[in-house]
């Protein structure tokens, strides 16, 4: 596997570690390590410590399982947020995307993935049981399914729906249709077909 001859074991170790990162090959890895070697010692210490701190001190919010600095994340501990609405997402990137819209004032529940046997992910690997417990505790009135529209996303939605449908909770999902600013002739047929079928009462669109 190793074709290069490194003059130093320390250098080789560092290169090997960087090369484990996604999207980083051995050439890039070497370039990054040599770059770090040229920096001030204090700079590199800061870099290394921030990584160690990240790994050792990061927590998962015990309510929504989002990544957090404290036991409960700052979304869950914010008293202004509506704890009756819970949005189900795959990971923290989706939380960030929805937060950026500034249109949702409820809380989240981060599954940590979606069901996909091909990737070795089953329901028990996800935060689904904790979701059921959370709904059972009674405060949640509506669950918003916000997973990707792939086969795996749909299946996970479906699995959660089956688990929750007998509990006293409203289950909704993201609207699917033509994106805003799109010209109709360029919309794909599947999306456009779905939009026509699930058309909306015009008046209800005025308030948005």
């Amino acid at each position, binding site marked *: 596997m190793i074709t290069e001859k490194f003059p130093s074991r320390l250098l080789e170790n560092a290169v090997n570690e960087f090369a484990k990162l996604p999207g980083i090959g051995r050439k890039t890895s070497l370039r990054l390590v040599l770059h770090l070697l040229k920096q001030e010692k204090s700079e590199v210490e800061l870099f290394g410590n921030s990584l160690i701190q990240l790994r050792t001190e990061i927590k998962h919010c015990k309510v929504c399982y989002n990544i957090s600095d404290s036991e409960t994340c700052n979304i869950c501990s914010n008293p202004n947020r509506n704890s009756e609405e819970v949005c189900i997402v795959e990971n923290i990137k989706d939380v960030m995307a929805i937060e950026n819209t500034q249109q949702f004032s409820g809380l989240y529940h981060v599954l940590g993935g979606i*069901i*996909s*046997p*091909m990737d*070795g992910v*089953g*329901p028990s690997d996800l935060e689904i049981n904790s979701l059921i417990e959370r709904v059972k505790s009674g405060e949640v009135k509506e669950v918003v399914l916000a997973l990707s529209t792939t*086969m*795996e996303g*749909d*299946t996970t939605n*479906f*699995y959660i729906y*089956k688990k929750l449908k007998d509990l006293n909770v409203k289950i909704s999902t993201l609207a699917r249709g033509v994106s805003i600013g799109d010209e109709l002739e360029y919309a*794909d*047929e*599947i999306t456009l*077909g779905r939009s026509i079928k699930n058309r909306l009462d015009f008046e209800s669109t005025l308030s948005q």
Partner: protein
Amino acid sequence: MYIKNLSLVNFKNFEEADLKFSANLNCFIGNNGAGKTNLMDAIFYLSFCKSFISSIDGLNIMHDQDFFVIHGRYHRLENEENIYCGLKRGQKKHFKRNKKEYKKLSEHIGLLPLIIVTPSDMNLILGGSDERRRFLDSIISQYDQVYLDNLIRYNRALLQRNKLLKQFAADRFYSEESLEVWSDQMVHYGKLIHEKRVEYLQKLQPIFQHYYELISSGKERIEMVHESKLYDHDFAELLKESIPKDRLLQYTSVGIHKDDILFNLGDYPIKKIGSQGQKKTYLVALKLAQFDFIKDLSGMTPILLLDDIFDKLDKYRVEQIVKLVADDHFGQIFITDTNREHLDQMIEEIEADFKIFQVNDGTVNEVTK
């Protein structure tokens, strides 16, 4: 719709070729290996962005050359369309319509409808059921995007369900509800696909019968039987019942992915009892039925490529095909043959315009009438 001009550079055994076609009948005559089918392939390429012979694009470049170019000028719905296809060794294939490059090749497919009959289509009869399913699926999905999407989703769910079955076996663990969500998805999409297949086959059957009778003068009775358990069983029940079996096999043993279409002659499968000529007739009738279907759906008359079609057929059937194709129901036709005998016969029948091309080892010349 028809192709007016075709020019080739370094495509297979043609270093350079420039052809002007008739809007009706075009014949390529030449010996084995002269390149008749390669010309057909070039026309096929411009409709489907790929070769019907080799799935590896690089193999279509002339040996020792770096690139090939196929360029066609079409007459389509009163407009001229310029279609360009270029491939450099080791690079992505470029496909342009009126000098504008396509982002996705799938956007092009369907623009220039085309039906081809080749000797390799025999696999449809002789091969496994997957060949016949693919034949059916490809026709339906050409004009029904939703069908294609449902099919992709069904296959995805099937793949995941099979993977899960394998994991259960490997981990000595079983969870009914994990399996159930995938079964439910398969049922949802599978039912939609089944309905479409039934609908399409019902439409195709009478057209197919009509053509077969015309060619064989009605001596033989033929039938296409769609074999699917979904006709008389509920798909959800079927999947549930097959769970013990599926767990043993570690794959899903029931569903629309196991459908077959039985091609019968009389009451027996043509695969087993049909002669070479009967099988060929069957295929030609099937393809002509497909032609009608696509003509109806697209509102355009597809180009028809008949590669080595007269091989193995008796004189009477050849005559019938010639008569049939000479009808103005069909638009532009391309035919390859090794001798002029059939073609002269055909030309006698045809009142419309025609052109004959002599193909010799990488060169093509129009034969003056």
